[in-house]
């Protein structure tokens, strides 16, 4: 049972052939070649596969692709500015050494992006709650929380 499906990924409509048993992570990685989204636990526990669907973070490894067809999907590839420069959040991650092996980083970035859009001035505690579904086995989270706090609106205004 194959079907032609259109996905709006990072603002562009992308056509591809999918089957109903494919998850969104399968389609993004294997069909659309957007390999920034990682498959890790494939059970919705670790958050490495996080993408934004209509602006809210979801686990793409347990999201059936058929149900994501009419939704606006954003992946880590869409975070950088059109010219190729990194976004403020990505810059903050790089400056704070918030990635070690980097496998969780794309999921962390997407979850943090959704948080900062809905709450531009989060507290440290709010950041910790928001990224509680993203597991990182390298950093111990301190650098990640530091990076997200540096990318908040309050920090940016203070720097200007």
């Amino acid at each position, binding site marked *: 049972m194959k079907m032609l499906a259109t996905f709006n990924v990072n603002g562009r409509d992308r056509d591809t052939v999918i089957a109903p048993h494919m998850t969104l992570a399968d389609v993004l990685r294997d069909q659309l070649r957007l390999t920034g989204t990682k498959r890790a636990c494939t059970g*919705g526990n670790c958050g490495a596969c996080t993408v934004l669907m209509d602006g809210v*973070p979801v*686990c793409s490894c*347990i999201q*059936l692709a058929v*149900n994501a067809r009419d939704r606006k999907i954003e992946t880590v590839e869409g975070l950088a500015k059109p010219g190729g420069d990194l976004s403020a959040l990505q810059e903050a991650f790089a400056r704070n050494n918030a990635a070690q092996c980097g496998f969780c980083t794309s999921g962390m970035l997407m979850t943090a992006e959704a948080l900062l859009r809905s709450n531009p001035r989060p507290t440290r505690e709010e950041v910790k709650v928001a990224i*509680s579904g993203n597991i990182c086995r390298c950093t111990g989270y301190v650098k990640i929380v530091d990076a997200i706090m540096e990318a908040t609106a309050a920090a940016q205004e203070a720097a200007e």
Partner: protein
Amino acid sequence: MGRVLLPFEFYEPESVAEAIDLARRHSAPFIMGGCTLVPSLRRRQRREPCLVSLARIPGLDDFSIHPRTGMRLGAKVVASALLPHIWAGKRFAALHEACEQLYPPHIGNMGSIVGNLCSGVPYFDLPTAAMALDAELHVTGQGGDRVVKLEDFYTAKFQTVLSRGEVVTQVFCPPHKADSGSSFKKIYRSRRTIDDLHKLNAAAMVTLDEDRARIIDARVVLGSWSFRPHRYRAAEAVLVGEAPNFDLFEQAADAVLAELDPVTDLAWVEKTRFAQCRVLLRDTIAQAASRAKSRHDPFEDAAEILEDAS
């Protein structure tokens, strides 16, 4: 865990009647967010050759929450939809807390509340919380509609009273009396051996009389202990008619413990779990009573302001 799902047929009906017809014809389960179904298909715990999706049926994502009319949630309402709602937080606090504490938080954006209730997984939180709020499920099937209390809904592990081709279109929690409060708490890691259940969860609802001096109604629910959450009427009987205080909550917790059967055969595991369970129940009831006592509704403030203005 297997990497891929096995292929299945997938139907996307656009009305409830069409969905019921498809599910009956193919003996297929319904799928909404898939947060329970997709991982179990991937682990090969279940094998489904056909699924019927509710995602394209309009109207099922409506919900209304109000202290006068109760809480009505359509089958497609996801858990995170409740979080910003003021009445969900103030008057249906148990379910609101359970949704807030879902792990990982992304699940709240994907999975529906009704789907969580219908999956029949013994350790899920939302059934425990909804049972304390006296939830009832509106079931639609070939033979017409019926209403099932959540207490009568589960028949065995992963089994409910639903047959193939029956769908829950709505969950309804009735409005409670004015001076009542509810609460939900869980202990996430109570597991000591591989055979233990992962966690304990409890929910309570306490209604006080007009002077807020005596308890006139109570519901105490403990989940994750057996295949379904249970109401403990002996504990409720301990609470009703008494003035709320800490010793009373401990007595109610002990009344629940008296009814519990051990889950595993290791004595020290049981000892730990019983001790945790006692503290959990005592604190849950205490918080519900505290909320009933300190209840503050902006709705009543607004009514008073309107009266003053007129």
